[in-house]
């Protein structure tokens, strides 16, 4: 009898734990407040950016700042919204952490090589696209893999990054290949180098950055998807979204956008500047 009570006690405790945990999810918090008003008061916009992605957002260990295309665009947009003395604060995110951080209100917007997809649009709002990316493949020079079709064989291992849209895509374009999901791009690159997979797949912008860092590797097959990057903003932040879109249009019109694009991609071999400029 005593044992039964104890058992019921354990079950009850577990039940409480689950209820408690799910309650965390439904509570309304920081994320419900108006971002634009808060940011205007503090003269700061907090952006979630990548810190492990060359050309888009990379941590510079010398001065501990994140530098890249995303970071520069974010700074330019911040200045357009808040004026000259507006400050862009950067918080490092990964593909996995960016949506939870945005939902918690830790960051105001995500500008982290994030593709606009219908599934994500259910969770967050997107600005107009700020970069036309597409998925491609990075392989070792001299590899027999020439395009995504070559991957569609049983036993072929392809490396992707957890939380990235590219993993779902490769399952569609090469359903027979096995996808290994690693936690970030640095690890994925390391896994490619150590031969855990024959190709690394993600957006071409990122792959160009990796290829320029690792001379033994090249991007092949061209882009096989259209995946425009957007700036993600919490649902219900209409005024802030409108401001971001306006600022984006302005920096495209006054040449700031093209200047930043040239600064980061001007020297990358194989990058089509004419097609990407606005």
């Amino acid at each position, binding site marked *: 009898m005593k044992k039964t009570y104890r058992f019921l006690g354990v079950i009850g405790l577990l039940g409480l734990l689950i209820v408690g945990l799910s309650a965390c*999810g439904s509570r309304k918090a920081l994320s419900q407040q108006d971002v634009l008003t808060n940011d205007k008061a503090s003269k700061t916009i907090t952006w979630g950016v990548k810190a492990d992605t060359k050309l888009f957002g990379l941590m510079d260990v010398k001065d501990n700042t994140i530098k890249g295309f995303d970071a520069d665009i974010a700074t330019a947009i911040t200045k357009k919204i808040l004026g000259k003395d507006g400050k862009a604060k950067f918080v490092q995110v990964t593909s996995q952490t960016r949506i*939870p951080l945005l939902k918690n209100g830790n960051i105001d917007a995500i500008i982290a090589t994030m593709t606009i997809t219908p*599934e994500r649009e259910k969770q967050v709002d997107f600005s107009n696209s700020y970069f036309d990316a597409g998925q491609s493949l990075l392989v070792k020079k001299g590899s027999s893999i020439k395009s995504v079709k070559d991957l569609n064989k049983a036993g072929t291992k392809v490396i992707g990054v957890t939380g990235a849209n590219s993993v779902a895509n490769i399952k569609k374009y090469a359903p027979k290949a096995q996808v*290994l999901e690693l936690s970030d791009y640095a*690890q994925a690159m390391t896994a490619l*180098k150590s031969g855990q997979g024959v190709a690394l797949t993600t957006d071409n912008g990122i792959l160009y950055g990796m290829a320029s860092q690792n001379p033994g590797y090249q991007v092949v097959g061209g882009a096989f998807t259209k995946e425009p990057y957007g700036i993600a903003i919490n649902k219900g932040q209409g005024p802030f979204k409108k401001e971001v879109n306006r600022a984006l249009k302005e920096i495209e019109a006054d040449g700031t956008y093209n200047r930043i694009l040239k600064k980061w991609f001007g020297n990358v071999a194989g990058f089509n500047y004419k097609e990407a400029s606005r």
Partner: protein
Amino acid sequence: MLYILTHYWSELIQGLGYTLLSSIIALIFSTIIGTMFAIFEVLPNRAMQIIGRVYIEIFRNIPLLVIAMFFYVIIPMYVAKIDGFTAGTIGLTIYTSSFIAETVRAGILAVDDGQMEGARANGMSYWQAMRFIVLPQAFKIVIPPLGNQFINLVKNSSVLAFVAGFDLMYQGNSIASLSLDTINSYVVVGLFYLVITLPLSYYMRHLEKRLA
């Protein structure tokens, strides 16, 4: 939460399978290797003691993730092609074995010296005395801390997620990013870990009662 369970059931079961498999392999081998190095440490032979000490101190003091990444990245480059699951399980085995060695060594030292001396006086060899007299008593003493190590081992198997080992945590990350429902995904993964660790915990307690 029900949605995650029903919609990603096959992924979760696959993850549970890989986690269980990795845990069982690591549990068996880390117990064997751990006991071996524990004996090395108490042998009346200076060289063996040093070997035991060095092994334990190295692997006990390096993060598990680093050991796993070593086997995932370095070994395939220079030695042999091993996949994430193998690399992670090897890392987990070695890491846990160093802790088990320390635990078992404490158990051996807790057995009264008289036991060994008595066994030797009755004509047993050192190894016979160790195998039949000292170790059985030592294991009885260390069951509670050993149970801790086993539970830690199951939880530490989540390191497989970082080397693409298809375990529960890997599937959890994947489901969280697919469903975009982070909280419920990890709650479900947590419950699946409990499915393994709770019975293990109760079994260790049962063993403790039966043998003590």
